[in-house]
């Protein structure tokens, strides 16, 4: 429900963030675009300024040259027009001017090529332009195509000069139409910027667009639809006005194909021309794109750097937190361990003290010995649980999966707890619905968990309460696999919600319970929980404070065929075993342990000799007559030579009983890998410390019966 309620908030937040990011990007793009546009417009105007100066200089140079030519012409005396033309030809040839003319008031033109023509337009040009002019001049009036050429005509008015009755009033030069171009920065921005000059009528004086070829006499107005200028507030009329009145302005133009250009117009001084620089808008877009691209990369790198820094900070923080938590957990664990171990130790030491004080009081002594034994057993249970816990947490627990009878498991556990439950005045109900009796599981571990649940239920249920155990099986998707579900319900004190969160953690025990409830290591639930996980199952709890708890335990298991049930051997009283014929070699470096073991064996009339380390054991065995030691109790951790090495060395001895002597590991190293290693070292059995006397004698009995069989054979 909470998730559903959060979703609109997350979506709203996401939309807001996207909108913020989008608008930020858009704002950034606009800012970059505007800045680039402004910068490039300035650059364009600067380039245009350079070209305008070049045009102005070029025009003035040509006018000055005409003036100089005329002044030189006046140095000479002429008796005929031909002489004037002759001299003019010399000037034309030496100046590089394509055509030079003297013109009369009537428009007659006398060229340096001896051509005499008439052009009435010249009269009006002089009248219109005044003392000096420059204009586009096309020989378009001639009917002879070869004579049709585009020129740039420069002219200056001169003081009327009369030769052979002809009065010259001006001198004119005709140059290639593109003669100015050489002095201009025609193309810029990798060919995407170009400039042109148009006259007042819109005809090109300079045009770098080569598609506008000769005779086309293309006009700016015909090339550009003025309605396509895009600058805000500048309609066609405004463009016209600006063209006429203003010195300079920049606008945007979009052609028919949709290409956009930035166009800068500037008036050319001393003429009626306009200089136009046109740059493809793509140039701006590319520049913006490059900067945005770089910005994106920089932004990306910055974000990445921030993310990495945050990530590193987070990882370090997590590590630090974990280390701190682990440290706290370790401290807490050690504190718990210390408390849990000190408690029975305190009991043992205290009881020992009381026993010494009451050495002559047999009744008291018996009571203290009984309590001392319980404290020792508790301490052993605690150590076993700690070891179990350690192995489970390290993932080193190996399950011993084997066919097992689930009903038998339940019965065994119930029978083991029945007395405990009944003794507490509790009612036990069993609701069993077992369909598949034989399953494959680790019977011991399943029992361990069930025992733990039941003993806990008994522990926390007050007198008169009820404990209900339910068992059922469910089929799974997997063939021949079932899920075994156990429920252990009690009507006990229940647990707080807070404690339920921690119940499966190590050393978790809710305080404020009765003293009985405090018995136990506090590891049982953790071990049970981890065991269920290892089995692929689960363990959970539902509880209400004051109303009781239900523990749910489930684990999958394969269904298997019914097995032959082997009746367990009846419990054998260790004292009743007759092992008097045995002589045992004890390899034990700890004197107390050696003494205890010697005394326990002696109690049963078993003779023994002690070797202080592995090497001594090997030597003693080697020095003995064959059959002297049918059994060797071999400690593992010993100086000079450990038990494994000693066992191997004994097996390698060349004597008849080297292979047959029963070597039993007798060690406090009780992990599975220790047992495996002992077996690999050719030992015959394993007895864990502290020594369970009953177990010890059972093992020795096996040896005795083995020896008897050998003798019989």
């Amino acid at each position, binding site marked *: 429900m909470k998730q559903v309620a959060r979703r609109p908030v997350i979506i709203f937040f996401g939309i807001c963030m996207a909108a913020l990011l989008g608008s930020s990007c858009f704002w950034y793009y606009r800012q970059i675009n505007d800045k680039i546009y402004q910068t490039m417009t300035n650059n364009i105007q600067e380039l245009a300024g350079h070209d305008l100066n070049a045009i102005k200089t070029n025009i003035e140079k040509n006018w000055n040259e005409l003036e100089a030519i005329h002044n030189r012409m006046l140095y000479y005396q002429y008796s005929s027009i031909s002489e004037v033309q*002759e001299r003019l030809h010399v000037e034309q040839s030496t100046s590089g001017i394509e055509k030079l003319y003297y013109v009369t008031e009537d428009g007659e033109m006398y060229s340096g090529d001896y051509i*005499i023509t008439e052009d009435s337009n010249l009269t009006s040009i002089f009248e219109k332009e005044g003392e000096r002019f420059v204009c586009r001049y096309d020989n378009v009036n001639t009917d002879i195509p*070869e004579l049709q050429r585009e020129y740039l005509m420069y002219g200056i008015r001169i003081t009327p000069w009369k030769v052979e009755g002809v009065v010259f009033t001006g001198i004119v030069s005709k140059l290639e139409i593109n003669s100015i171009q050489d002095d201009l920065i025609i193309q810029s921005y990798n060919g995407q910027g170009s400039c042109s000059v148009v006259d007042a009528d819109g005809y090109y004086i300079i045009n770098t667009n*080569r598609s506008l*070829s000769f*005779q086309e006499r293309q006009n700016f107005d015909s090339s550009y639809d003025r309605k396509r200028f895009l600058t805000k507030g500048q309609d066609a009329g405004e463009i016209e006005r600006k063209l006429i009145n203003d010195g300079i302005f920049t606008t945007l133009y979009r052609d028919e194909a949709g290409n956009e250009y930035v166009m800068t117009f500037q008036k050319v001084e001393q003429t009626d021309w306009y200089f136009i620089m046109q740059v493809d808008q793509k140039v701006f877009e590319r520049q913006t794109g490059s900067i945005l691209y770089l910005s994106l990369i920089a932004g990306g790198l910055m974000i990445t750097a921030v993310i990495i820094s945050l990530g590193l900070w987070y990882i370090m923080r997590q590590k630090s937190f974990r280390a701190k938590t682990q440290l706290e957990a370790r401290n807490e664990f050690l504190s718990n361990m210390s408390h849990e171990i000190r408690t029975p130790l305190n009991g043992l030491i205290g009881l020992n003290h009381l026993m010494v004080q009451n050495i002559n009081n047999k009744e008291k002594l018996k009571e203290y010995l009984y309590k001392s034994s319980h404290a020792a057993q508790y301490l052993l249970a605690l150590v076993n649980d700690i070891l179990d816990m350690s192995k489970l947490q390290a993932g080193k627990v190996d399950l011993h999966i084997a066919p097992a009878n689930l009903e038998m498991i339940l019965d065994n556990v119930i029978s083991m707890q029945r007395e405990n439950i009944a003794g507490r005045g509790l009612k036990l109900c069993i609701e069993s619905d077992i369909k598949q009796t034989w399953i494959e599981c680790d019977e011991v571990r399943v029992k361990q968990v069930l025992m733990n649940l039941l003993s806990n239920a008994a522990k926390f249920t007050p007198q008169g309460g009820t404990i209900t155990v339910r068992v059922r099986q469910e089929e799974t998707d997997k063939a021949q696999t079932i899920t075994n579900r156990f429920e252990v319900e009690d009507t006990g004190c229940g647990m707080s919600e807070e404690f339920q969160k921690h119940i499966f953690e190590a050393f978790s025990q809710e305080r404020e319970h009765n003293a009985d409830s405090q018995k136990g290591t506090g590891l049982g639930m953790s071990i049970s929980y981890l065991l269920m996980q290892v089995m692929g199952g689960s363990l959970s709890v539902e509880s209400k404070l004051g109303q009781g708890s239900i523990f749910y335990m489930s684990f999958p298991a394969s269904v298997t065929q019914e097995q032959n049930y082997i009746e367990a051997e009846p419990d054998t009283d260790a004292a009743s075993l007759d092992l008097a014929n045995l002589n045992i070699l004890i390899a034990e470096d700890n004197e107390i342990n050696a003494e205890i073991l010697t005394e326990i064996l002696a109690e049963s009339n078993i003779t023994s000799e002690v070797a202080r380390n592995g090497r001594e054991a090997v030597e003693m065995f080697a020095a003995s007559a064959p059959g002297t030691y049918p059994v060797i109790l071999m400690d593992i951790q010993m100086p000079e030579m450990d038990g494994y090495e000693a066992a191997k060395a004994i097996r390698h001895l060349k004597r008849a009983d080297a292979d047959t002597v029963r070597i039993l590991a007798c060690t406090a190293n009780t992990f599975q890998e220790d047992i495996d290693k002992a077996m690999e070292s050719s030992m015959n059995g394993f007895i864990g410390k502290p020594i369970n006397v009953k177990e010890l004698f059972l093992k020795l009995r096996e040896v005795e019966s083995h020896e008897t069989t050998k003798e019989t054979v």
Partner: protein
Amino acid sequence: MKLQKRLFKAAAMLGLGLLLTGCAKKEEVTITVKVPVLAMNSVADSDIESADQFLKKAAEAFEAQNEGAAIRFVIFEQTKEDSAVTDCFDTADAADVLYEGYFNMSTYIYTGRMVPLDDMISDEIRNDIDGSLWDMSRADGKTYMMPYLSLQNTYVYNKELFRKAGLEKYLTDESVIQNWTLDEWEEILSVLKEKLPENIHVMPMYAANNQGDTHTMTLIRSRGSSFFDENGKFNLNTEEGIAGLQWMKDNYEKGYYPPHCEDLEISDTVELFYNEQIAFMIGNSANGNAIPFDYSVVNFPGGEGGHATSFVTGFSVFDNGDEEKVELAKEFVKFIYETDPWLDYSAGAIPASQSIAEKYKDQIPMLEEYYLNNVNVVNFTANNPNWRGVRDTFYPHIQSLLRGSETAAEAAAGLDHDCNAAIEEGLNTGQLHE
């Protein structure tokens, strides 16, 4: 979701339908046709004054018939051919089709950029055009140019000025191509010089650039020079060649040419002629309509019947690395030759098509006379490669001769050396289109 699926299906069906019915717009291919400023008369269309006008009309018709085809024209002055053609190689402005006289064609052929056109020439067209024109259009057995029309260059003279000089006896009212002996030429030139005013000149001469050099080359033959040797190489350093050059120099010294003619262009002499400031002009039938006064035609001096030059004007296609453009350019040229009435526009000059010549023989001025005059036509290129290089080395020697910085003998030797070197360069460095 259902509505979306339906819309998607409808759009897919529409797209498929458009694809199947060919409604998708064809991508536009634009080719560039370049043409110099060329005078043109056409009896098929009296509005035509220059070659570009005819070509633009043909292009409009071609574009109308070929969706996605676009033709862009660039018209250039003849003096700016470099910037219009060679300078544009490997640029977006390169010509895909060039229409002009064959003067520079050999140079372009050997750039390896001109495309052989044999695959687009139908048998009908091949048979309709005179074999001599095909010969001039070939290199290494492949046809690189499509001859469209030819013109014979001769002298055109102002009959009124002849009358003013009292030379009526040389005038004729008949529409013929005249021919005068060398003695007659001497008399005519000397009389014109003597009788005409000082500012009216006699003969055209120019050497400012490589334009109009066919005239000058032909004049060198006036004293019997064969111009080329049997291998097609320049062979002016002979008695006849030197004499021809010397005659040109003598005429200058006698004042027959405009002063400083070495600095003039052919267009200057044409302008002088149209202004009636010179008696002769180099011209052809394309100029006829524009001449505003009474004129007649005479062969260049030399040989028994005088000399004339004939130059073919036609189409060539360039490969600029775009196959689509090459194909479209060839389609356009083919369109002109195979679609009425575009071949008819050649009637005015001497049509390359014999059927068109036959069709318009009564309307083409002096067609019969030009045919008859073919015997006096000299081959001024000998189909040599790098003719542009030849022309560029030719006129500086003529300039030097006219200025007096080279004698006729020196000029002859220099011409042989430099022009043959240009031909060799063309042979050695040129390559044909692969």
